[in-house]
């Protein structure tokens, strides 16, 4: 019946389009971030929500302390190996649709600290990141730019069809495995389902 209804809906193109627009409009204008900061970048994240920059203008100042009510995880700062399982667990506990912004060099790739033994070389090893903001730390404006990039991305998503985002697709698994603490490193060191580095270093 589900499938039937879906087909029905996709046949009624008009209806789905308006619904889709409404849905995307709602989602993108109400992005509540998880109140979650890791390191220096978090201070710039806070600065972005402060009077000078005022993230609230985008309706995104509702920093929810509980993952159950948050839509966006801003990974702001260095993710250490000791912290990574917690980050992933938190992300898993957020309800769909949810987004990840990797803010700052550390969150993207380990940044300046990537040579460290306890530093995860990028949160995208375990989580599907929607937007990356380079910078160390990125300016508050850069975070807002990223938010707008994210809004654009949300605005372009489709409710049905093969290109629909993961949370609308029943086949895609709903959560990401949490790595375990090993004797020397996290086990596994990355999640092959999420992380696809280029086969060879592009030069």
């Amino acid at each position, binding site marked *: 019946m*589900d499938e039937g*209804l*879906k087909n029905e*809906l996709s046949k009624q193109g008009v209806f789905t389009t308006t619904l889709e627009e409404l849905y995307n409009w709602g989602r993108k204008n109400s992005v509540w971030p998880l109140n979650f900061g890791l390191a220096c970048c978090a201070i710039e994240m806070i600065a972005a929500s402060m009077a000078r920059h005022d993230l609230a203008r985008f309706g995104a100042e509702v920093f929810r302390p*509980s*993952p*159950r009510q948050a839509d966006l995880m801003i990974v702001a700062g260095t993710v250490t190996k000791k912290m990574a399982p*917690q*980050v*992933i*667990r*938190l992300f*898993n*506990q957020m*309800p*769909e*649709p949810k987004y990840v912004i990797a803010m700052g060099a550390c969150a993207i790739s380990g940044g300046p600290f990537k040579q460290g033994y306890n530093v995860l070389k990028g949160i995208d090893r375990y989580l599907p990141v929607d937007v990356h903001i380079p910078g160390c730390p990125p300016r508050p404006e850069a975070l807002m730019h990223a938010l707008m990039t994210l809004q654009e991305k949300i605005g372009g998503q489709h*409710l*049905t069809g093969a290109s629909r985002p993961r*949370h*609308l*697709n*029943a086949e895609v*698994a*709903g*959560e990401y495995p*949490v790595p375990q603490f090993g004797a020397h490193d996290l086990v596994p060191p990355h999640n092959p389902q999420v992380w696809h580095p280029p086969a060879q270093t592009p030069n």
Partner: protein
Amino acid sequence: MPVEYNPYLLVVVLLAAAIAFAVTPLFLAYVWARVFSPRKPGNYKNATYECGLESKGDAWVQFRSEYYLYAIIFLIFDVEILFLLPFAVAFTGLSVGAAIAMIIFILLLVEGLVWAWRKGVLVWK
């Protein structure tokens, strides 16, 4: 010409409306989840939140019995209010004697409160 109706019927309708008000969106959300955005429960997702760690120990633990003392005092004063209300409504038509009777009533209870206060019961730990 105002229509007369049973006040309780109104309350019932109001309650029903409240339920409808709450349940309709929940139902809509359910339909949405069925049609478009499938719910995907999972081991981690449906685990209890505890600051990102795995929750350890049951949350349903027993609390300090000091909390209970507040509840007792509250109950007694709630009952006091139950008697105060009719008194208050009738107050304008009552004699000084009745008022004094009520003062005695209150004082008795206040005495209990003062006793509890002095006993250090009203200390939240």
